[in-house]
């Protein structure tokens, strides 16, 4: 309620100020006491009505995407306002009453629509069945680029991201900064060096000093560069490049998820396509499709292999989360958990970004003298932080670490669930229910 009042004021302060000014003007300028009283009283009613209207609009805009059953209350408030106005502004009385009545009818119908069971249509099934094994290396590489960046030729575009979500953490070109994960330029050549690293323990996984020794019992270690790449995808914590481990684990655990498992769930042919692009773009002849798939089969047991995209009932969406999932899954799918600690969300122990206790911190940050964003409320601040992370960067974390694509990669429903949840997380209080 307090938020609503604040928002109403911030939205309509100019109109309210003009009305208040008018009231003062009438008080000062009209000499006839009866006329003065009438004019001042009418303006006072106008101020209340304008405020109610702004509160109603604020409520409507806040809840536009939600399944809030109280949403039509906004329209009812406007109806009451117009009828009250009609009592005092007789010249516009008919217009106001008609308008108010229309709002009432619309409120009723909106309310009815919100009362009914809410069914949302899912995303389309995948577009076409791909015949991976008959593709040329270039075609495979193109598919790989689409999986990584969302389209052919997009590998140098800032923020381009595909269903593989790799650019969220990795950089792909020499000189580009990848703070959270190694730069993957030159990877096919570097693979050979990695497996010769004593820490890698080629041929003897039991000697490894990492959280996970083998991709699965008996899988062994990589024997060549391609197998190293495959193992990195399937078991990121089997070997962690120095400096890129989860903070506090002394580089024993990788923040990267297994790519063949949810939420990313790339199939083996898709992984092979990704690898082909890694070779082809550097002018190196890629291993054959069969060899690539075989390298993954070594580290991913049969039961764990995701079905190919064209066998799924639905999928292939460019959205990370469509909003139909519970909020903890949304956090996981969007990979928020990799960088942030979020109380109440399983596995959200990241330390790359700030701890998210926005119920307490959001309002403090808006008041921060260095804050230059446009948010007026905690919910607006959280939304702004997701879609425009550079609007305010929490100290001492660096800028440009968080991707700027979430506004486009999360559905409005998913964003709303995130904002709703985070706005309830308060320092020192038990986390909200999921």
């Amino acid at each position: 309620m307090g938020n609503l009042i604040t928002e109403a004021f911030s939205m309509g302060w100019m109109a309210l100020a003009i009305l208040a000014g008018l009231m003062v003007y009438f008080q000062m300028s009209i000499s006839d006491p009866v006329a003065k009283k009438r004019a001042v009283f009418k303006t006072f009613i106008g101020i209340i009505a304008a405020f109610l209207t702004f509160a109603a609009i604020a409520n409507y805009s806040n809840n536009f995407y939600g399944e809030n059953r109280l949403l039509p209350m906004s329209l009812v408030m406007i109806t009451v306002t117009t009828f009250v106005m009609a009592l005092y502004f007789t010249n516009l009385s008919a217009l106001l009453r008609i308008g108010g009545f229309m709002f009432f009818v619309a409120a009723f119908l909106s309310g009815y629509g919100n009362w009914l069971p809410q069914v949302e249509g899912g995303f389309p099934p995948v577009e076409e069945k791909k015949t991976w094994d008959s593709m040329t290396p270039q075609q495979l590489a193109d598919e790989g680029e689409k999986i990584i960046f969302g389209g052919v030729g997009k590998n140098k575009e800032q923020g381009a991201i595909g269903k593989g979500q790799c650019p969220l953490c990795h950089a792909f070109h020499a000189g580009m900064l990848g703070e959270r994960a190694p730069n993957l330029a030159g990877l096919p050549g570097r693979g050979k060096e990695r497996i010769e690293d004593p820490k890698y323990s080629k041929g003897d996984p039991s000697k490894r000093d990492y959280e996970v020794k083998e991709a699965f019992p008996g899988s062994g270690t990589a024997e060549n560069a391609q197998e190293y790449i495959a193992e990195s995808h399937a078991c990121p914590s089997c070997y962690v490049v120095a400096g890129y481990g989860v903070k506090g684990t002394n580089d024993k655990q990788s923040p990267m998820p297994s790519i063949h498992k949810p939420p990313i769930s790339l199939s083996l042919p898709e992984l092979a396509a990704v690898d082909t692009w890694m070779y082809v773009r550097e002018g190196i002849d890629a291993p054959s499709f069969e060899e690539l798939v075989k390298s993954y089969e070594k580290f991913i047991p049969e039961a764990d292999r995701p079905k190919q995209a064209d066998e799924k009932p639905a999928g292939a969406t460019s959205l990370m989360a469509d909003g139909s999932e519970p909020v903890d899954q949304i956090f996981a799918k969007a990979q928020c958990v990799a960088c942030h600690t979020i109380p109440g969300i399983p596995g959200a122990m990241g330390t790359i970004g700030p701890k998210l206790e926005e119920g307490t911190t959001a309002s403090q940050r808006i008041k921060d003298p260095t804050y230059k964003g446009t948010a007026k409320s905690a919910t607006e601040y959280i939304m702004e932080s997701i879609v425009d992370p550079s609007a305010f960067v929490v100290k001492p974390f660096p800028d440009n670490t968080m991707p700027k694509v979430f506004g486009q990669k999360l559905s409005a429903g998913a964003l709303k669930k995130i904002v709703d949840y985070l706005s309830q997380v308060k320092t020192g209080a038990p986390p909200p229910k999921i």
Partner: protein
Amino acid sequence: MGPLTSKRVFSVVALCMMVGLLLLPVVVALPSLANGEEVSAGDAAKKDGEKVEKGRDVYYKTEGIVVGAPAPVTTDGPKDYPRYNFESRVLLWFANQQHLYYGSFVLAVPIFCMIIEFMGVVTKDKALAKRYDQLAYDFIKISLTAYSLTAILGGILIFTFLTLYPAFFSYLSGIFRPVMHIYALMFVAESGTLYIYYYGWDKMREGFLKWIHLSMSVILNIIGTLLMFLANSWIGFMMSPAGVDEQGRYLGNIWHVIHTALWNPLNLHRILGNMAFGGGVVAAYAAYKFLAAKTDEDRAHYDWMGYIAMALGVAFLIPLPFAGYWLMREVYAYRQQMGITLMGGLLAWLFIIQATMIGILFLSTNYYLWQAMGRMRGAEKYQRYIKYLVFLLASGFIVFITPHTMVMTPAELKAMGGQQHPVLGNYGVMSAKNGGINVIITTTVLSFVWYMRGNKVSTVSWAKFGNIFMGVFFFFAYINIIFLAIYGYYIPANVRVGLSVPQVATTLSCLFFMFALNSFMMKGAKQMGAIEWGKISARSQYALIMLATAFTWMMGLMGYIRSSVRLFWHVNEIMRDNSPWAYTHTVGFAANMISFNVLFFWITILFVFWLGSLAAKKVPVEAKAGIPGSVPQPATSH
């Protein structure tokens, strides 16, 4: 041949010539457009010695030479789906809906004008003729301001398409390129005719010129209707594409592209829908003017205007469900899956809302008619029976909107003992619903019959027999409808479906036979008192506003249903929607969005009305003389 007849014949000939001249370019252009590219493309290909590629029409199954590019395979990104920081689909929804509201309004009003002006020309009563003429003039005056807004909104719509869906728009405009300029030219012709029609009103008031003026309204409506048909061909193509092969390549026959499976049902449905909507808007305008009126004369005029607009709107509302039925039948014939998505799948809850809307429309109409009886001397005799009509309507309405399954918490589910209520669940089935809606429509017919004979007493020799016959007819109509509704519970579902035919036939019999019989009985009837126009309650005007708002809302709802049935296709089965918004919103979101569109439309059009009242010219004195209320009105005036 008398002078009047020869004038009429001459005006009809002149009219035909004008229509012919106007349509000549279109008629001449169409065949060449349909074949020209095909031939030229074929020639070009032959000249180059290349193999002519042929494609098979996805709907007509005919072969044609490929002359267009395949439908683009879009990907989510700034190239195909550039965007602001907002859901593009919602922006387009808004732009489209506003353009459609205004477009419908400005297409419907000239049809009203034509009808009313014609009534004015043919009526023998001079005072009444002037009233009709003034009313038609008022109607066109309202639409004129809205006309420019329609054009502006059309521009905004195109810009929205170009900026947010460039790949889709360029594909669609590539397909429809042969007729796009015709569309634009017809828009120019429509504007020109409208301006001459409006500004020439006073100059062409009398005699032969009046007939020419009336003829122009016919031309105006022909152009307007053709414009709408062309616009409909776009949405028809998007829903049920034809004239292209499986890859979406244009095969050179523009008529196939236009004349898709759903084009004609859409055309009919939209004409009727526009008319009902137009009637609602004009009725709301009249209600606004009535409530704002300062003099009895104004109140009388706008009361009458509201009544005529309401009657016209409802006259087109009644056949609308039948046109809807045809459209749905064609949808099922085209793709059964599409029909199931609409009526029994994802969008089925929206049809429950539609049922409620239909109920609201009929309740409002009845309420208005009962209120309107208050301004007739002699109608008191019917008013004491209104409570029984309320009972019938309320019963029918409650049964009609009862859902089969209900929204419940687990605790409620447990308390009720199942998904359906032991008593109420019985009313949720189709058999009961058919009974409910037919009772509602029959009661509305009865209200109209009472209104038409409110202040009159039949003087025909068989009046007593006629009254008894009508009473018995209505009584057995109700019995038949309710009996069939109950009987439906005792027979298998496949037989039950057939019961809707005798139920609807009963309702239509009441509509046509009872209206006709009543008109015969009331010919030369004795008047108990004049209709005191303007002496109607303010509440009745709110009923008109309710009617107008509900029409607008229902139009938004049905448009949304029609559009979202394509699911994740821009062009059904030809061009996929690969934007992040290729899913269907929840019912609640759709309802909020429709409300927003409805309110935006009404706020802007109320503003237009208000602007119109600022610029209102003084009504000529001689026209005012004929305003109802100032002189006793003949019995035939309603």
